[in-house]
């Protein structure tokens, strides 16, 4: 049984985002693997080790966007595939889900597909469920631990607001992983050497045997949030009690509480 892990390449979290002419720009900031996806790669590598299968890392993006895939290869993934086609520009989540599902279907004997919790740029967090839906597989989202996994099925813990929920399903299945799963490993030097030398195959729509899916959502407008005005004030007073009282009054006056 093989495993696929889907990763997105996103601007570094330290990047300064701005909107220029209706387009989002992150300036010169480097593109990196979506931080949440490192947890998914970690989970995929651990489970492949337990089960003895191989891990294919998959990303949809521009032809030049291989940094995230290389990072995942350096962490230990066996294969990497970039899905890229000029016709995919402007794809929304529904389109992305169809394309990723078609790519997953091309990988041999897939039992599990791992996703991160969400992409730190577009932030919808819906893609795992959407891909599962297209594939017709169960979606186990926001998974913090995998309690059981064998050829017949999987049992996981989901972190939900009210606590933990234990869910089980048959395979193949789609799993999105959260931070509690465990710290992702660093790339190893051996992995780095392999990744640096790897040429990553690019699958265009032709290879996937599909047409560019048409988006169902449009972005009529993108705006930068209004600048927040921050003012700092140091509260002084003769005694801690006096300072605390003044602070409490201010908080009440500002209707913070």
């Amino acid at each position, binding site marked *: 049984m093989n495993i696929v892990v889907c990763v997105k390449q996103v601007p570094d979290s330290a990047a300064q985002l701005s909107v220029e002419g209706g387009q989002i720009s992150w300036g010169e900031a480097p593109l990196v693997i979506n931080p949440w996806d490192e947890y998914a790669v970690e989970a995929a590598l651990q489970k492949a080790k337990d089960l003895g299968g191989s891990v294919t890392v998959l990303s949809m993006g521009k032809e030049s966007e291989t940094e995230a895939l*290389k*990072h995942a290869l*350096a962490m230990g993934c066996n294969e990497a595939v970039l899905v890229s086609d000029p016709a995919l520009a402007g794809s929304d989540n529904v389109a992305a889900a169809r394309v990723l599902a078609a790519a997953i279907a091309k990988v041999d004997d897939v039992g599990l597909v791992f996703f991160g919790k969400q992409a730190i740029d577009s932030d919808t967090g819906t893609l795992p469920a959407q891909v599962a839906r297209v594939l017709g597989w169960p979606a186990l989202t926001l998974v913090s631990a995998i309690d059981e996994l064998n050829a017949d099925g999987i049992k996981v813990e989901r972190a939900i607001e009210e606590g933990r929920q234990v869910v089980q399903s048959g395979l193949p299945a789609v799993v999105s992983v959260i931070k509690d799963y465990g710290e992702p490993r*660093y*790339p*190893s*030097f*051996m992995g*780095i*050497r392999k*990744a*640096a030398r790897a040429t990553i195959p690019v699958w265009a729509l032709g290879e996937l045997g599909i047409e560019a899916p048409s988006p169902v959502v449009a972005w009529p407008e993108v705006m930068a949030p209004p600048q927040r005005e921050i003012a700092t004030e140091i509260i002084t007073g003769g005694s801690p009690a006096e300072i605390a009282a003044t602070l409490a009054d201010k908080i009440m006056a500002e209707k913070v509480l």
Partner: protein
Amino acid sequence: MNFGLTEEQRMVQKMVRDFSQKEVAPIIQEYDRKQEMAPFILPRMGELGILGICIPEKYSGAGMDYISLGLACEELEAVDTTLRVVMSVHTGLCSMTLWQWGSEEQKQKFLVPLARGDKIGAGAFTEPGAGSDFANIQTTGKRDGEDYILNGEKMWISLASNADYALVTVRTQKDTGKSSGELTSFIVDLSTPGVTRGDIHGKLGVRAGSTGWINFQDVRVPVANRIGEEGEGFKVTMSAFDNGRYTVAAGATGLIRAALEASVNYANERKAFGKPIAQHQLIQSKIAHMALNYEAAQLLYLKAGWMKNEGQRNTKETSAAKWFATEKSFEAANEAIQIHGAYGFSDEYNVERYLRNARGAVIYEGSNEIQQLIQASYALGERQDKALRMEMPAYEE
């Protein structure tokens, strides 16, 4: 000419940065105060392959190039000097010298476990009575059948109390008229009877790491552990310095960067006379110098690293890189404290640690006076590199 890093080098840089920033930065001040090395550091660096970073895979190393070694040292010392010191002595002085001068048998026996990080190595050259004047060391090695018997004391040895092996250079002959030709190097297993060692306390810097003494009393070292021929010890040791100094240069570059980053952050936050101090020109001047010196120090070590990759002799370039980077790292740390005002004088901020740590590197791996003598003797035509019997191998992918 290409000034860019390769994809592989950038990945190494990021990996070592992530390790040092995530795992070491949060705890280093505490260990510096306690004057102890955090126990996880050496095993973790071994497990991640950092200790054998530039040793070929054939000897269980990570097989990266010399520039990657430099980049790793820069990242490590940007967090704490003690991390880079590990690279200087374990990797630079001990492992790389074994790789250059050792026999195939010695490499299998000693280099392989060092590259894996299963064993820790040190370089023991300095003595209580001889540092810069290295040819004048007094520890003796007397041939006795298939052994040499070592007697004497080495002082100021980094990782003295952590190391399993040490590359040790001793005097095996006397009164031949050429002191440097009387020295011989050995790889010594420090668990051999007659070896005692301990740490020096009350150091100004590198407090989160071990610096100590190693005493040899009738220590039997097999001839099979001799690195190079009898009388080649001076050359072997100078080769060790060509590599150790490179790691010091790259590390000190990282310390300049850390001082610069701390200064920029603080100068943007702290206000005086109605504006952030970053907007006062005298503060800008300090920051400008740090930024310039960082660039220059980096170029110097990268050039030396490139020469190493090409298999070119780089004694002159490595010495220049070490001299410049260590001098400028001390200056940068000092100015960073100035920018932090009184807060910089307290260990609540990192910059006072940077200063204490930067101070040592001006002395060790050849004091900066010695580096100046080296530069002058090259410039005056008094010194030319002669081919060595065993050269450091060029990098092979």
